[in-house]
């Protein structure tokens, strides 16, 4: 039986889904010592490969919304000409029609090459791929977003989507933990979020350095501080797998059900189409059954080593 695609959005069926579309870098922003953000816009001469693409109506649609619509939690495959291609979560606001935003860390050959690119350079984009955060399912509930390290990047679109229809949700809480104060992402945006009266934001670091007077401790220590109704809460969690497992443990002990908790997983990906087989996690393909998974579905697989 094919797995139930609970959090899937239909994506455009490109004729050859292995062909990237050229995008031009509009801006590069350095976030921390090893993390940076790229803002991408379709390269002027690119056709978006989407079927059916019908003449004037199709072109007019592209002019209004140049960037393919994506759902919070989805990812693109970013291609550096001649170097390689990697999956990176989309971190921009899903309602922004003009550009794609990606935050990534330098960890290997392709990310090193991405880091060297400048405004005006062109890279290839394929996507969007994958399942999405349960932004719709969460309506009418409290929303708890728990981010660890660069896990904040794939969660940012979910928070944007929730905030854009704030009245549809109960309490909304953002818990963010990272290694040290100098590793905090999106500082200015965090300050804007904290300034809102309809959003609780707590930040913590594993190691307080340089005069930090905020919380120190792992991100799970923030959960008791947050106020939410566990029985009517949807939790979205992203970060290192160990952090996500402990977060789920803590949320469950607060009374949040395993089917109300969602993780975003990461595995090796070369195609993002379910063809190369590399992203398999038990019976699932992280590229198409994920990367966002309902915790109850994957709970027993998570404690299996080397799966």
């Amino acid at each position, binding site marked *: 039986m094919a797995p139930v695609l609970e959090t899937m959005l239909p994506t455009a069926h490109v004729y050859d889904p292995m062909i990237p579309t050229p995008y031009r870098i509009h801006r590069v922003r350095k976030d921390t010592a090893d993390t940076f953000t790229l803002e991408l816009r379709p390269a002027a001469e690119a056709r978006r490969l989407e079927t059916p693409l019908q003449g004037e109506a199709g072109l007019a649609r592209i002019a209004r919304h140049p960037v393919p619509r994506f759902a919070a939690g989805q990812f693109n495959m970013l291609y550096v*000409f*001649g170097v390689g291609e990697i999956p990176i979560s989309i971190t921009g606001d899903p309602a922004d029609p003009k550009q794609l935003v990606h935050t990534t860390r330098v960890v290997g050959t392709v990310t090193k090459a991405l880091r060297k690119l400048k405004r005006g350079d062109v890279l290839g984009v394929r996507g969007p791929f994958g399942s999405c955060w349960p932004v719709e399912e969460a309506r009418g509930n409290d929303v708890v977003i728990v981010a660890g390290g660069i896990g904040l990047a794939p969660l940012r679109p979910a928070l944007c989507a929730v905030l854009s229809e704030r009245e549809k949700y109960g309490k909304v809480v953002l818990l963010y933990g990272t290694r040290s104060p100098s590793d905090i992402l999106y500082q200015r945006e965090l300050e804007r979020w904290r300034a809102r009266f309809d959003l609780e934001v707590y930040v913590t670091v594993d190691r307080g350095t340089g005069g930090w007077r905020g919380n120190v401790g792992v991100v799970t220590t923030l959960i008791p501080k947050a106020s939410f109704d566990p029985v009517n809460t949807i939790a979205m969690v992203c970060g290192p797998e160990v952090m996500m497992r402990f977060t789920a443990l803590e949320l469950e002990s607060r009374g949040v059900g395993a089917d109300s908790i969602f993780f975003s997983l990461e595995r090796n990906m070369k195609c993002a189409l379910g063809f*190369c087989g590399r992203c398999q996690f038990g019976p699932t393909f992280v590229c198409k059954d994920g990367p966002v998974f309902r915790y109850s579905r994957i709970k027993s697989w998570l404690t299996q080593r080397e799966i």
Partner: protein
Amino acid sequence: MSQPIVHVGGQVVVERPHFEQLLDVLSKKGYRVVGPTVRDGAIVYDELTSASDLPVGWTDEQEGGRYRLKKRSDEALFGYVVGPHSWKKFLHPPVLRLWQAKRSAGSFEIAEENQEPSRFAFIGVRSCELHAIATQDKVFMKGQYVDPGYKSRRENVFIVAVNCGQAGGTCFCVSMNAGPKATSGFDLALTEVLEADRHYLVVEVGTERGAEVLSELPHKAAHQDEMETSERIVAKTAQQMGRSMDTTGIKDLLYRNYDNPRWDQVAERCLTCANCTMVCPTCFCTTVEDVTDLTGDQAERWRKWDSCFTMDFSYIHGGSVRPSAKARYRQWMTHKLATWIDQFGTSGCVGCGRCITWCPVAIDITEEVRAIRESETRQKEDEHGDA
């Protein structure tokens, strides 16, 4: 000779001397005819220019970690089973360029690979292989995304199946409900009959396309006793399977046993050489390589067969998710027999036995399943013993 009109589902007889013409007819229709031929001490799949390229009078002896060719005492065209190649080498090529790109005007342009898709005619496809092709069809054409190259190669293929006249030492298609009789997915299906004074083929017509090709060969309607002879041959093959696998509840059996010590035992033998994945007709995993020339102005993307047995396969920043041989063998076997069922609705295994034959240390997938099942029986007995 009367030439009755052939129809889908009908059976006709073609005498051995006339069989030669089948390859010519296909070739004239523009098909690239490929099929079994002897090379380097094995029966492989390659281009056939005539029926004499087939392994006439050859058979194969297969056991765990062993494959030898032997001369037969007759001149059978299809007197052997399956070798190290499978039809995936044509439908899902081992090395394939996906596109080329060149820098231009501050951006880059991609040129799709627009060659005429090959129209293959496969000669000698066994039932297990028909099931394997159908299994890969599910992967590449029935999911959310379609592999356009696979689709066009697949749609243009003409399949001449063969009902096996003997089973191999490592065959277990019966256990996997994948043979030995070809029941669907072919244009024509042959059963070769060798008698003292006569050598003929009973041909079942599978499609209109098959009927069209067959009508260009000298043939006549099959008699009742000829059809019965061919049925008997296939029935006998079903009794000769070299291996068997109990697939009762196999998905849950394996899901329960991820920590079974048997995995450690098989890991001590497994070289992670990936032979099994290369010869398996359903294994489909690949890698993608992006390359560039020295100037950096031209780039290409290539897709190549890969294997879950490599360390790279599951590598994410920091390391491989499956560093141990045990985890990689377990991944392969549980994918093939268990998680495949949840992913695609069928088993990934067709019982062709190649993985057993071509494993250098003769690891036997049927034995591994048996061992895990028995370990549960033993455990239950121990528990009852203590009560």
